[in-house]
């Protein structure tokens, strides 16, 4: 919102510089965005978001009142004088106006003031006025429109002028629209009205959208000589609903939706009449019709215990300090035992309770004046958040294994869903996405993660990539509105074929084949489990109808992961179809793990096992693997042969000959090679 400093100075004697004024406004009211010299005026631009509760500040008078309070200067408030100013219409006027109190909807219109003026010469407004309007970003149109705009920026009350001769039967009704009614607003657009929308109508048709925009059918033109001038207080909620439904906002609706002061229409109307008489040769030919559907214009008094203000703000104020500060913003007060009884001015209907008053005291005296203290604390410590700690632990383990953590968009669009065969799944859908790729909430991390992989291969020419994302998925639940929001850990591994895997043990460094890459990748997942001290996990064969089926995984190079018979993850190669879709090379490995299960089974403190004092015996055994025999089963079988076997590793694979390295260990004594060899013989049988 733009403010003219000249106009502000009309209402308050302030000699501070524009910068000083702007600084004070920024600290105690709202942010000043710009100060600009325009002709002999200075225009200050303020942010109006922080004024949502302050319709009075959408005017120069309102801002002048604030500045007066900040600098403790006298404010010349013209409202009272204007409101009491007698209006002397020409007697025996032929210009009749038909409006009855019952014609004004009392639910949505608290006050409705109109007057008729004639003999108007529509033409340009005086230079000072059009210049002021222009400086404030309002296009001058003609003296009638300009005067209504000027009074609005001056006092904050929107006004509207109807062409008297175009109003059927010279009758005004403030009513809700009837079903199917339409009207063309001043911007030339046809509006379909619904039953809740408040309109100004004549005897036949709507002639204005109440508090939003006038109708084209009664627009003031250069042929207009007689006008009906309106100043009203419309109910904010209805005004806002209508404005939202029609997607039509205006300077007027911006003010009405914030709950304008019902004391304002009359003085504003009189101010406009004065200006029209002076600058439009107008003659007033009616009394002011003033319909009021309110019991009182002033807000209810507020009772505040004055000690409470000090303890709530953390600064000692005496009752008279508080009274003096509040007096600067027009609040009069008297002491009533330990309370202050406050009379709130009509334009501050946002002040309803002690906390509101505390804000005024803090704001006017300055937030900087409030001391800096810390709340008392009994020293008790809150419980740790196990999930946040667990996720952090997982991330640090993955960092140690060369993974980059990636964060990607939680949204997904139709194109990527279709591309990844996820389109058939139920997704949470946005009503109002801004772009097509933000239409749904994702339920898989793979589409964006694979996109990230492709992008990195293209842009960074990397061939050795390990990335993961640990984030929420949004999974709709049947017959329930709220989705599940599980955390998943989804990772992708691409190994550089030439430089090996970084794993120099076990001869995997040179010529890679699928099973070596599989083993290297799986080792990463196993290491993660080991580092988390998870015991009892297992990798089981995977198929289309298994617990963990996932379209991103290769049908025959994938394993399901179980922790204690609980399916919680999946590991394997990328499906060849996805490889084609994302233009990726072979031998990319993926994992997808349910983070909650990982954290639930992770042990923080491993329990110590006594270290055997005797050296182990190690025997290598090569076994010819029959068709369909699984290495995992063989290892399990070997391990179960003797309790002395502490580990079985696969150290070499040549065609179908697998060499296993078996470690024997007796807890109490030395084993001989012979004893080891004997057990190995048992294995063979």
């Amino acid at each position, binding site marked *: 919102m733009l403010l003219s400093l000249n106009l502000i100075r009309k209402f308050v004697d302030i000699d501070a510089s524009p910068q000083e004024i702007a600084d004070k406004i920024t600290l105690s009211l709202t942010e000043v965005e710009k100060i600009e010299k325009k002709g002999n005026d200075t225009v200050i631009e303020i942010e109006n978001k922080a004024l949502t509760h302050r319709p009075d500040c959408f005017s120069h008078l309102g801002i002048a009142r604030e500045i007066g309070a900040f600098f403790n200067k006298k404010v010349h408030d013209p409202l009272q004088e204007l409101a009491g100013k007698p209006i002397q219409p020409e007697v025996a006027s032929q210009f009749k106006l038909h409006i009855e109190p019952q014609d004004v909807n009392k639910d949505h219109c608290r006050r409705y003031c109109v007057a008729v003026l004639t003999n108007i010469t529509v033409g340009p407004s005086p230079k000072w006025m059009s210049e002021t309007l222009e400086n404030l970003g309002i296009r001058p149109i003609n003296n009638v429109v300009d005067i209504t705009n000027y009074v609005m920026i001056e006092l904050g009350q929107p006004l509207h002028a109807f062409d008297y001769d175009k109003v059927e039967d010279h009758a005004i009704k403030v009513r809700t629209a009837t079903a199917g009614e339409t009207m063309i607003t001043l911007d030339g657009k046809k509006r379909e009205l619904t039953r809740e929308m408040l309109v100004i109508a004549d005897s036949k048709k709507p002639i204005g959208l109440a508090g939003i925009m006038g109708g084209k059918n009664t627009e003031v033109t250069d042929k207009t000589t007689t006008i009906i001038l309106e100043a009203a207080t419309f109910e904010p909620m209805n005004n806002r609903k209508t404005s939202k439904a029609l997607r039509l906002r205006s300077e007027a609706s911006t003010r009405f939706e914030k709950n304008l002061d019902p004391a304002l229409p009359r003085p504003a109307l009189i101010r406009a009449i004065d200006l029209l008489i002076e600058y439009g040769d107008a003659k007033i030919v009616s009394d002011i019709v003033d319909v009021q559907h309110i019991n009182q214009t002033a807000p209810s008094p507020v009772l505040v215990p004055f000690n409470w203000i000090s303890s709530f703000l953390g600064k000692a104020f005496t009752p008279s300090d508080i009274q003096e500060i509040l007096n600067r913003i027009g609040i009069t007060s008297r002491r009533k035992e330990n309370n202050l009884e406050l009379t709130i001015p009509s334009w501050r209907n946002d002040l309803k309770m002690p906390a509101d008053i*505390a804000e005024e005291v803090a704001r006017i005296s300055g937030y900087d004046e409030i001391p800096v*203290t810390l*709340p008392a604390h009994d020293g008790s410590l809150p419980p740790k958040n196990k999930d946040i700690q667990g996720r952090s632990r997982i991330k640090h383990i993955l960092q140690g294994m060369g993974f980059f953590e990636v964060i990607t968009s939680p949204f997904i669009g139709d194109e990527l869903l279709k591309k990844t065969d996820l389109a058939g799944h139920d997704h949470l859908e946005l009503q109002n996405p801004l772009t097509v790729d933000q239409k749904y909430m994702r339920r898989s991390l793979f589409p964006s993660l694979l996109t990230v992989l492709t992008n990195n291969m293209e842009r960074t020419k990397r061939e050795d990539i390990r990335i993961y994302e640990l984030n929420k998925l949004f999974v709709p639940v049947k017959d329930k509105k709220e989705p599940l929001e599980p955390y998943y850990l989804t990772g992708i591994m691409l190994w550089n074929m030439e430089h090996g895997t970084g794993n120099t043990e076990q001869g995997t460094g040179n010529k890679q084949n699928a099973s070596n890459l599989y083993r290297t990748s799986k080792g990463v997942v196993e290491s993660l489990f080991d580092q988390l001290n998870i015991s009892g996990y297992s990798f089981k064969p995977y198929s289309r109808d298994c617990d963990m089926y996932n379209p991103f995984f290769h049908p025959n190079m994938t394993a399901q992961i179980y922790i204690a018979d609980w399916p919680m993850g999946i590991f394997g190669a990328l499906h060849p179809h996805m490889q084609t879709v994302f233009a990726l090379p072979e031998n990319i490995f993926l994992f997808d793990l349910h983070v909650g299960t990982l954290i639930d089974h992770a042990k923080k403190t491993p329990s110590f096992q006594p270290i055997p004092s005797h050296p182990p015996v190690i025997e290598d055994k090569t076994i010819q693997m029959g068709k369909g025999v699984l290495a995992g089963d063989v290892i399990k079988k070997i391990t179960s042969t003797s309790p002395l076997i502490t580990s079985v590793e696969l150290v070499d694979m040549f065609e179908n000959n697998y060499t296993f390295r078996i470690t024997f260990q007796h807890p109490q004594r030395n084993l001989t090679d012979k004893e080891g060899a004997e057990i190995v013989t048992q294995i063979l049988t």
Partner: protein
Amino acid sequence: MTPQLKDLQQSALKVISSSSSISSLDALRVTYLGRKGEINKLLEKLPTLAQDERGAYGTAVNSLKQDITKALNDRQQELSHSAIQQSASQTIDVTLPGLKPPIGHIHPLTQILGEITDAFERMGYEILEGNDIENDHYNFEVLNIPKHHPARDLQDTFWLTNGLLPRTHTSAMQVRVMETGKPPFRVCVPGWVYRQEREDATHAAYFHQVEAFAVGEHISFSDLKGTLYTLLKQLLGEETQLKFRASYFPYVEPCAEVSATCPHCKGKGCTVCSQSGWIEILGSGMIHPTVLKNANIDPQKYSGFAFAFGSTRLAMLKYKINDLRLLTNGNMRFLEQF
């Protein structure tokens, strides 16, 4: 010493002194001094000799043994000394680049979040998380933002087709937490929030936010100021100064928008803070009595403060990241810098 012993002595000392490695020396030690070595062979002859010859022969063999032992030890010392010498004289290009083990990177946002939650934990705050998908009630209504309140325009909301919404702020957790417990509360809620905004270098349709609030008896606006000083000094540096200015959010009263001195120029003005020296950092205030009431907390007895800031924004500020989109496009050249 018999000629035989003399020959042995000469030949032994010769081979020992010409031996060129520790391993050949070890072999010689076995040859001469081993269980079946030359010396033992000589001693085996002892019983075959005449009684009066035995003493002299024994002495001679022993002396030979000592000579050989000494020669072996001397040579061993020489050899190991020269081996050390040789090893020590080897050189390497010390500027050869190291081969680094493949270590990954934790996302800068995760890193900053760790700093944030650590700071809150030190201040005795419990870290809690909520669901991203909220309903109108907790996201707006209980926070004193009824339907058709103009304040709803302050946050452009995404709506889901099922009537729920991805939360517009983590403040949605305030009443959820308070209505299930009893004061005092000290709670910090980190999480993703969603706004219907066009994405550019400084705007995103989703970003990370941290909400914090404290409720108890006699909690004051000055306590809010002190808490923010304590927190922001931890996050932005000990010399950080704050500026509190009036603002408006319907769920706090009084409301204060807080700016901090730019952590890069310490308030002198630089490109990060657009030369102003200050960075707008968070919105805060005393929890509105209506919000407390909505959480079944008696505002006559209890008071509290709340504040929220963008963790994404803090990460950008701290690491001087000039484009928000870098945080979520997965570019490894960006991520490897952290």
